[in-house]
């Protein structure tokens, strides 16, 4: 029995010596972050259009959109984010990138929030808000759209177009 116990002990000791120390010295040393790890996202405000594709795809509604009088605000709440990275996949402007940041602990919920503020552009005829200014600019860049029509809301655009067509077919006004 004694021999068995000593044999077992020597086996464990040899395994322990072979493996060495496994504990990582985390707060004082580097964390164990692999290459495929997904952390919090970061929104590049120079690229973002404010189209809201990320808001629609977000499963836990961590990204939300708020419409105010002059601003459109995209709010990213890290506390509710499940770090799936679907927003980065769906973003048409490649403005969202997944970082490896995971040390997000905070004592206040407001510290976990990130705001991206877009200015609203308004219809040049009726003054109704139509969308973020940066989105309109990116549409002009990618599509040959007449600048007369881009600053109009959908109702005013329809009216103008109908008027132009009717004049072409011989209407008086």
């Amino acid at each position: 029995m004694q021999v068995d116990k000593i044999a077992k002990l020597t086996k464990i000791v040899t395994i322990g010596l072979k493996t060495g120390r496994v504990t990582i010295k985390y707060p004082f040393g580097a964390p164990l972050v692999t290459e495929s790890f997904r952390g919090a996202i970061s929104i590049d405000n120079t690229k973002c259009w404010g189209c809201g594709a990320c808001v629609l795809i977000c499963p836990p509604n961590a990204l939300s959109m708020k419409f105010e009088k002059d601003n459109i605000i995209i709010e990213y709440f890290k506390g509710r984010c499940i770090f799936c990275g679907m927003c980065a996949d769906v973003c048409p402007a490649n403005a969202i990138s997944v970082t490896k940041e995971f040390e997000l602990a905070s004592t206040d919920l407001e510290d976990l929030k990130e705001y991206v503020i877009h200015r609203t552009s308004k219809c040049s005829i009726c003054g109704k808000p139509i969308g973020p200014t940066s989105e309109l600019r990116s549409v002009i860049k990618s599509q040959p759209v007449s600048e007369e029509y881009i600053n109009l809301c959908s109702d005013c655009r329809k009216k103008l177009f109908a008027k132009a067509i009717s004049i072409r077919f011989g209407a008086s006004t």
Partner: protein
Amino acid sequence: MKLDEKLKNIRRSPWVFHLNSGSCNACDIEILDALTPYFDAERFGVKLVASPRHADVILFTGPVTREVLPKVIRTLNAVPRPRIVVAIGSCAVGGGIWWNTYSTIGGFPKLKEILKEQGVEIDRVVYVPGCPARPEAIIYGLLLALGYVKQKVSKVTKVVES
């Protein structure tokens, strides 16, 4: 600060109690992972205890289901002051994927309001996001609660120039 003076006594070795309020078990497994020799939270004297009456810090997981709400309030009431809560995971921080379901109340911020009505005071709360939170993130949150490390995140406001 009175709380910081009291924290100095706890800093020697914080005893933690693991409180699951309807979590999916992922965060609970990560808490166990943080206590294993690989990450070894016991370097800081962290010890898992079986009773909330012995605990200094509560490791709180889950979105607080309606079924478990009275039990959670009773458990938190049993914790001696200063009560420190580390809310771990997206569910505990902001409701997570169950942010608008009928059967959960939506994480610790909502529970805090209910506790205020019941007269249970919480001295310090640390929110640790993650789905599930990494063992390192849990250790970091615990150390932030005890005042070893400084907070890294802050509120960010970006304005799109147009």
